[in-house]
C-alpha cells in the first residue's frame, strides 16, 4: 500500500511538473515563456539535498520531453542528467550555504551548464548528419534571456519558500 501511494505520488508530481512546463512554454508572454520549469524544479530539489529524486525525475521528465522533440532521441535526457549531476556536485561541494547570493549564482551556473551541455550534446548528435550552427545572435539572445528568467524564477521560489517557512510560519509568530 505504501509503495502504491509513493508510485502514485511520483506519477502525479511528474505530470504536474510537465503540465506546468508546457503551460508556461505555450501560454506565458515573452520573456516568461523561456522559463524552464522542469529544470528549475530539479535544481530546487538539489538545493534541498534530494539528489537521487532529482535524478530519477530528470530521467522521466527528459523522456517525456523527448517524445515531442525534434532532437535525436536521448539528447534532452542526457543533458538533464549530466547537468543535474554537475549542479548537484556544485551545491554539495562548493555552494554549501543557501543565501540569496548563492541561490543567484546557482541559478546562473545551473542554466548556463544546461544550455551549454544541450548545445554540445545536440551538436555531437548532428555531427554525422548535417552542419548545425547554434551560434547565431538569436540563439545567444534567447539563451541569455533563459538564464535571466530561470535565475529570477529560482530566486522567486526561494523568496516564497523563505516567507512561508520563516516569516509567516506560525511557530515563529
Amino acid at each position, binding site marked *: 500500500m505504501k509503495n502504491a501511494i509513493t508510485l502514485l505520488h511520483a506519477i502525479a508530481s511528474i505530470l504536474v511538473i*510537465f*503540465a506546468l*512546463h*508546457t*503551460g508556461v*512554454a*505555450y*501560454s506565458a508572454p515573452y520573456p516568461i515563456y523561456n522559463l*524552464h520549469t*522542469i529544470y528549475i524544479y530539479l535544481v530546487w530539489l538539489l538545493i534541498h539535498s534530494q*539528489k*537521487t529524486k532529482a*535524478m*530519477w525525475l530528470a*530521467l522521466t521528465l527528459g*523522456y*517525456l*520531453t523527448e*517524445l*515531442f*522533440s*525534434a*532532437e535525436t*532521441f*536521448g539528447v*534532452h*535526457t542526457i543533458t538533464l*542528467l549530466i547537468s543535474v549531476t554537475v549542479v548537484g556536485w556544485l551545491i554539495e561541494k562548493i555552494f554549501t550555504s543557501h543565501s540569496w547570493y548563492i541561490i543567484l549564482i546557482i541559478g546562473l551556473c545551473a542554466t548556463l551548464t544546461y*544550455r551549454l551541455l*544541450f548545445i554540445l550534446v545536440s551538436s555531437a548528435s548532428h555531427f554525422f548528419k548535417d552542419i*548545425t*550552427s*547554434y551560434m*547565431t*545572435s*538569436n*540563439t545567444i539572445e*534567447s*539563451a541569455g534571456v*533563459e538564464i535571466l528568467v530561470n535565475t529570477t524564477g529560482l530566486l522567486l521560489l526561494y523568496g516564497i519558500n523563505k516567507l512561508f517557512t520563516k516569516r509567516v510560519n506560525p511557530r515563529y509568530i
Partner: protein
Amino acid sequence: MPYPSRHRAYASLGVVFIILLILHYLGAIRPIEQFIRNIIMPVFGGLHTFNIAVGDNYQFFRNKEEFIKNYQQCIATTERQTTLSADNIRLEDENNELKKQLAYIEKNKPLFVLAQVVGREISSIGQTIIINRGTNENISIDEPVIANNGILVGKVIKVEPDISIVRLVNDNQSRIAASILNDDRSLGIVEGGFGISLQMNFIPRNEVVQVGHQVITSGLEKNIPRGLVIGIVASIENEAYKPFQRAILTPGTELNKLTMVSVITNP
C-alpha cells in the same frame, strides 16, 4: 563521500536509461510512446489553440490619423488584390487551355496531407511546430509544409507514426533556395534565425530588388517545388564593399499563429 545507496541509485538510473535508449531505437516501446503521446497531445493542442486565441490579436494605433491612413491603405491593397485575383483566374484558364493543346501530361501530381498544428516544441531554442500527421500518412523527412494555399512555412525534420516535427522557415537552421519575383528573377538563400523576420542572402549586387517584391521558392532544392511563397521584401542592404546584397523579408504568414497546415508529400 556519497552513500553506497546513492551509488546503487545512480547505477540503476544508468541501466534504466540505457535500456530505454535501446528499446526506443529497436522500436519495442513504440506502442507505449504512442499511448503517452495520444494522452498528452490533446493538452498540447488545447494550450496551443488557447495561446493563439488570447495572444496578441490586436493592432494598436498611435492616433486617429494613423488609423485612417492604415484603413485607406488596406482598402487600396484589397482593390489591387481583387484585380490581381481576376487576372489570376484568367491566366489559370489560359494556362489550362495551353496545357491541353500541348497534350501536357501531369506526372507525379503532388499530394497534400492536411494536418493540425498541435503545438510547438518545448525545451528548444529553435522554431519548430508539431503536427498531428506522420508516417501513417506517408509523410517523410524534408517534405515542404505550406499554409494558406501555398505559403511555405517550413520543412519536416522528424517523423513518427502519429506526429511530425516541422522546422519553420524562421528557425536558425533553416535554409531555403529562393527566387525574387523581380525583372532578373534573382536567386538567393532564405535563412532564419533573426526573430520573426527572414533574411535572403547571396543576391547578386547588380540585380534590382525593391521593397514589396515577392520571394518564392526557386525549385532548385530537392523536394521543394518552385513557386511557393516565402515572403515579401521589407528592406534591402546593398553595401559597396560586399559581393552580394541582402534582403530582409517579412514571412508570408504569421508563423506563431499556425493552426492548420498541409504537407506536400510528393513534391
